[in-house]
Structure formats: structure tokens, C-alpha cells
């Protein structure tokens, strides 16, 4: 089976996100107010061959642990479609 996986990588809570802060400051300039807690992350999508969904999930988790995220500063979420 081929599964579609999506990995969302974000800076850990409590780690300052200068990109998010800059966007937060820019939005009111467009008249878009009431925005707070803007955080910027990245999404990685991939197709993976695996016998079942659980195996697909654990393989993508391993990819995150070993390459896709840096555990010192980043957290991640894996979604298998």
C-alpha cells in the first residue's frame, strides 16, 4: 500500500519565533487586527509504501526523529492520509 503522509514541523513552545513575530506585526498594517500567537513552521508531504497504516506512521516518525526535525528546537506531528 502507498500512503500519503504529512509532517508538520514547528518550533517548540516557548522558543521565540522571529518569523511569526514579524508576520504578527505586519498584519495590523493591512487592517487585519486581533491577531496574536503567530507561529511559522513547515510542512513536508511524502508518499510511502508500507504494509499498513501503523507501519507507515512509525516509519515517518523515524524520519522525523532522525532527519526531518531537530529535537533541540522543533516538535512535529505526523498525519497519515
Amino acid at each position, binding site marked *: 500500500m502507498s500512503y500519503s503522509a504529512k509532517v508538520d514541523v514547528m*518550533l517548540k513552545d516557548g*522558543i*521565540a519565533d*522571529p*518569523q511569526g513575530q*514579524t508576520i504578527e506585526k505586519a498584519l495590523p498594517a493591512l487592517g487585519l487586527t486581533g491577531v496574536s500567537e503567530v507561529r511559522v513552521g513547515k510542512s513536508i508531504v511524502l508518499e510511502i509504501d508500507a504494509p499498513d497504516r501503523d507501519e507507515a506512521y512509525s516509519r515517518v516518525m523515524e524520519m522525523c526523529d532522525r*532527519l*526531518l526535525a*531537530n529535537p*533541540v*528546537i522543533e516538535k512535529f506531528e505526523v498525519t497519515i492520509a
Partner: protein
Amino acid sequence: MSVRAGIVLFPGSNCEQDCARALGSLGAETRIVWHQEKELSDVDIVVLPGGFAHGDYLRTGALARFSPIMEAVCAHARSGGLVIGICNGFQILCEAGLLPGALRRNVNLKFLCKWTSAYVDNSTTPFTSRAGAGRSLRLPINHFEGNWYCEAAELEDLRASGRLVLRYAENPNGSLGDVAGVCNEDFNVLGLMPHPERACEALLGSEDGAVLLGSMLDHVGAGIRSVPV
């Protein structure tokens, strides 16, 4: 016999010639080592130079860690050999787990290219023996991701054990604890954001970089290894 330095060239490195020139002027024999090579047993010092290894894709240093040469770099470090990572090289050493912490985007989201002053907070390492403790070094920085970070408890451990070797006089990038350079537990691996290789000639505005690079040559020349081989 002169000290031999291997300078690793990744696709996207751009400071390897500067490192070779600076180390050569201090009396070292230098060799540029392509990242696909697997052997470093002929060198005393390994340099991971600045640049944008593997395009800095995904995260700075994240892909360079998997270059074939990195196994030899880790083995060299494990055996007590000196390894210095400058700028992008620092980022690679953190990603490879040879140094603690990680380098984040600068706080002001600005690419910084300027002179800085960094204090030597520990002058007993193989990288800083030519500096007196507390000496300030004038060195250039040139980076987008120099904002070093680690967990608070680890920061205290690193400080207490003297591993936060270099500290900015005026923090340019948000780096935790004003850290400009950090050592591993055995003090034979150093990562730093400032570029000592660009400050080894009076014509370039400073010769303070030679304090750091020259200390390494002294260390090897004296036949000292911080870890028994």
C-alpha cells in the same frame, strides 16, 4: 614536521580557501577534503568551514551531517583529534551531535555581516591557549542562523564546566547566554559563529583569528591530545 589540517569541502562550502590560506600562513600543511572522501587519518586538525553546505536545505547543517566524510570527522573527534566548525561548520557539528544545542534564525531576521568582539571565557582549551582569559577578540560574523539555543539546565552545565568558550561583547543575533562558541565535553571540538580565518592579517582589519587557529597548532605541535588515543 608541520601540523596537517584537513578542510572539508561540502557542495556549497565557500570559506575553505580562506581557511587554507590562514592556516597555511600560520605554518600548517593544508589539504582540501571533498565531502565524499572517507579518510582523515593523515590530518591532525579537521576544519568544517563556513558556507551553505548542501544548500542549507531543510535546516542548516542537517544534510551535511550525512555526507560520507562525517563518519571520519566523528572518528577523529572520538580519538581526541581537534575539530573546529566555523559558522556553517558549527551548525553541522550541532546537527551531527558533536556539539550541544542548535542554531536558530537571527532574532531580527537579518543576515549579519559585520565585525564583533568576542570574549574568551575559557583560555585553557586547545583553541584558546594563546589568549589570556577574558581577552576580547575582534572577529567578523557573516550568518543568518547564528542564534544558538539549548535547554536552560544544559546551559548552566555548559557554563559551569567552562564549555561556553567564546561570548559576544554585544549580542548580535539573540544567541542564548551571548554564546559565540561552544566546546564539547572533552574540549577537542569547537564550534563558533565568528570567522577566525578572515581575521589573520592586519590588512583585513584584525589578526585576532590567529589567536584561535594558532592555539590549535600549538596544541598539536606540543603532542597533546585531550583524550588518549
